[in-house]
């Protein structure tokens, strides 16, 4: 799970989003959107 320090820095200790331990919000947003697109395109 990710955590936030008092200065607003993201610390993703468990690599929750698979983006390393200090992801930028833009990267997190892109990861969410691309993962959603991937699931929606599953051929089932």
């Amino acid at each position: 799970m990710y955590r936030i320090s008092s200065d607003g820095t993201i610390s993703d200790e468990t690599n929750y989003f698979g983006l390393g331990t200090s992801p930028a919000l833009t990267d997190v947003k892109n990861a969410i959107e691309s993962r959603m697109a991937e699931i929606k395109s599953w051929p089932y």
Partner: protein
Amino acid sequence: MCNALDIIRFVMHVLSCTFCHARFVMHVLSCTLCFALLFVSSNAQIPCLPRYGSVYSSATIPKEYPLDLSMPAEVIAGHKALDNILKTATLDDLTALEQVRTPVGNTVRALMKYNLILTDYDPFVLHRIAGMHRSYMIRPLDIKLAILERVRRDSSTSNFIRALIGSEYIAIIKIDSIYKLTDTSAAMARTATIAHFTVVDSLLGKVYPSSLVFDARQESVEWALHGDGDALFSTDQTIREASLIMPLPGQYLIFLRFMMLRSTITTTYFSLAPNV
């Protein structure tokens, strides 16, 4: 000897006591009724919960969801598939689905896919479709919970996927106001942290309640834990705040899910809660 004033005082005293007694009886009845409504009744208004602004209501959809040709094809396909599942699957089927120990297969993946598509189109819909319609054996919510339990048991499914499937909303929001509230007279949910916010960018869930409020009610969370056994909620406010919201200058990325309070034949009541 009693004079007229004494008699009047006596009558007033009797009336006052009777009124007090009546109020007491009404209070007891009211409290009893509140608890009864909370835990037993299925047809009354949502009782007892304070009006914090984060309890939403919407008309229950009594039958099949009315399809609209303006909907995207994948949404129509999802609703048709959902309708078939609701008519044919039972709770036993969902339990069996949850308990399979092999990695998630195509059936569950298809359920995950269409759950995501329908939720993204309108998160309200899946929670408004009534389970008591005679041709439906289960509710859409039952399917969602089964999917979540199934992927929870599958170690190959990442937490990231679980967060996507388990959320109704993923959004970047701007906090307009935040305050803490204490209501010692409330039967439940006496303390709350209330945040009013504006959606800046919606990643999941395109339809929102008209007035958005995020409500972290400690006791309502406990109620949810005890009420439906949903272990996704944490009652630890510190953990919840640290793990769910990513602060930016004035903006946050937040994962939310509906917390269904209750559903009647005509009305379904929701609140919004963090998805842990």
